[in-house]
């Protein structure tokens, strides 16, 4: 009883105290005091918002503006290797020179088109496979006994915490000509000549599904875990078969989880570099790899920037969709 009464009591005392202060200090002084306090509180709030805001503006938003700027410059053999967009003539006239040549180059050279389309295709197909593999796992974890759930979740998260690079590397040993799969198949006499699996598109699909699977499972699990099981009971009571109940109740209700997981896989996979570089062949064109080569091998910063801007434009719709979904999930929670 006493613990419950305490807050209300103190609150009352506090109120009387503050009115007492107001009465004693007189109207003017009290107003000034309150104004000052409010001002300080406002200042504190502003700086709390301001610190991460400024960091993100400086290191996330402004860099994109610079990429856009350099994508409109020309390549130059200099340090840094691009021309300036504006310069002053006789300190009076500002001369601005925008060069759309890099974008024209992207459109004209079929290499870039092929790479963009191929990246989208590889990312989309991998996302579908991630969903097909990840959904039953997420569903199984969400329906497991509560004490087992934590263990199973940890098993999903554990590979995600181990080095991405090393997990991709592991597949080289498995897929290569004298790798584990081929050794096993040859020993069993199933094949005579080793299968070519490394440096193919197949290896890239496999690598993406493998590396991004936890990103699909976790949001799906978070969604399926919250599913109201009484809905399924109601469906069963009304004579609905479990498989039908799954497709008409569970699946539609888990759409936000499916969307979140798919975006978390699809968007980074489109720009993936490590997996096609390690597992893909020379003809596996993906845009992340093209951007990397344009930058590191050709040292063509303006074209690399144009490739990045075009990639960003391609991903704007999925990214906005992802953020909308996240924001709605956050709203629903609070």
């Amino acid at each position, binding site marked *: *009883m006493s*613990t419950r009464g305490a*807050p209300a009591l*103190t609150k009352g005392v*506090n109120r009387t105290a503050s009115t007492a202060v107001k009465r004693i200090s007189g109207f003017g002084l009290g107003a000034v005091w309150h104004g000052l306090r409010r001002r300080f509180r406002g200042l*504190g709030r502003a700086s*709390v*918002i301001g610190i*991460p805001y400024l*960091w*993100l*503006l400086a*290191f996330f938003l402004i*860099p994109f503006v*610079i990429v856009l700027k*350099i994508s409109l410059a020309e390549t130059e053999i200099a340090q840094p290797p691009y021309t300036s967009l504006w310069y002053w003539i006789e300190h009076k006239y500002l001369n601005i020179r925008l060069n759309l040549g890099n974008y024209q180059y992207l459109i004209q050279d079929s290499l870039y088109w092929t790479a963009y389309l191929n990246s989208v295709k590889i990312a989309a197909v991998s996302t579908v496979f991630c969903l097909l*593999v*990840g959904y*039953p*796992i997420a569903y199984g974890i969400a*329906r497991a006994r509560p004490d087992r759930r934590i263990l*199973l979740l*940890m098993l*999903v998260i554990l*590979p995600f*915490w*181990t080095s991405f*690079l*090393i*997990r991709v*590397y*592991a*597949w*080289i*040993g*498995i897929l290569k000509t*004298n790798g*584990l799969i081929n050794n096993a198949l040859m020993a069993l006499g199933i094949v005579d000549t080793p299968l070519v699996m490394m440096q193919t598109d197949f290896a890239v699909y496999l690598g993406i599904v*493998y590396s991004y*699977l936890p990103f699909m499972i976790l949001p799906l699990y978070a969604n399926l875990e919250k599913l109201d099981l009484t809905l399924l009971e109601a469906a069963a009571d009304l004579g609905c078969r*479990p498989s039908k109940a*799954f497709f008409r109740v569970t699946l539609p209700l888990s759409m936000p989880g499916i969307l979140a997981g798919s*975006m*978390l896989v699809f*968007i*980074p996979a489109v*720009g993936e570099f*490590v997996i096609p*570089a390690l597992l893909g062949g020379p003809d596996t064109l993906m845009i*992340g790899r093209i951007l990397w080569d344009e*930058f590191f091998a050709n040292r063509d910063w303006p074209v690399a*920037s144009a490739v*990045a801007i075009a990639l960003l434009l391609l*991903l704007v719709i*999925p*990214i906005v969709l*992802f953020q909308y979904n996240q924001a709605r999930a*956050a709203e629903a*929670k*609070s």
Partner: protein
Amino acid sequence: MNQRRFFVPTAMVLGFVFLYAPIVSLIVFSFNKSKLVTVWAGFSTQWYGALLQNDQILQAAWVSLRIATLNATAAVVLGTIAGFVIARFRRFRGRTLFTGMVMAPLVMPEVITGLSLLLLFVAMEAALGWPAGRGFLTITIAHITFSMAYVAVIIQSRLSDMDESIEEAALDLGARPAKIFFQITLPIIAPALVAGWLLSFTLSLDDLVIASFVSGPGSSTLPMVIFSKVRLGVSPEINALATILVAVVAIGTIISGIFLARQRRARERDMQMAKADIAD
């Protein structure tokens, strides 16, 4: 019904085999005698010895560990503030832009982030003379930027699960917002802070693409060295290194898992006791 009871467990078992088989094969062949990574020729720990004598790898590991520690600490501070702002400040000018900037690094392709940060650092050096050259500092700043997004999401989701009435009670009792944050909010979300720190640490230790863009001569991180070696083919030393990393992560995850489970149990006990108190 029977079909489903069979399908889901089978899919789960196969899924976990798929997740773990490559890692297990890495570990097994790190103890292989032969230099041919995938042909078993007897047990040996020689590759661990070779690893300990590889100065290039050791040096890169030291650089990576220092960057990861600095990054995780800064990312937890900035990410916690950002997560708090999203969860608790419902209205302020530019909120949409802010949440957008916090969420976007989660999905942004690494090549774009890497390139844009490099171009920023080059432009900053030309205009301000800072940061002079690229390397340790620029990699750390780049890592903080994407790690803080992960921390912010963890903290924001923890804060929206939290019972806000505790904070309101403290406010009613006359505590200042800063005091409430440090004495009430922060201790309650402490497990999320630990999780955020660990995640930031591993994200930084793992990053190849962004570090490659913003690093300079003489500051190769561990993933950069691994990548240049792996491109030339499989090497048993990398298997040994992978095994050590997996072991460290597994031990860390198990310890934090036990710690979190214990804390949850303690919290449940406290809540029950509190309820019993009220009932009295």
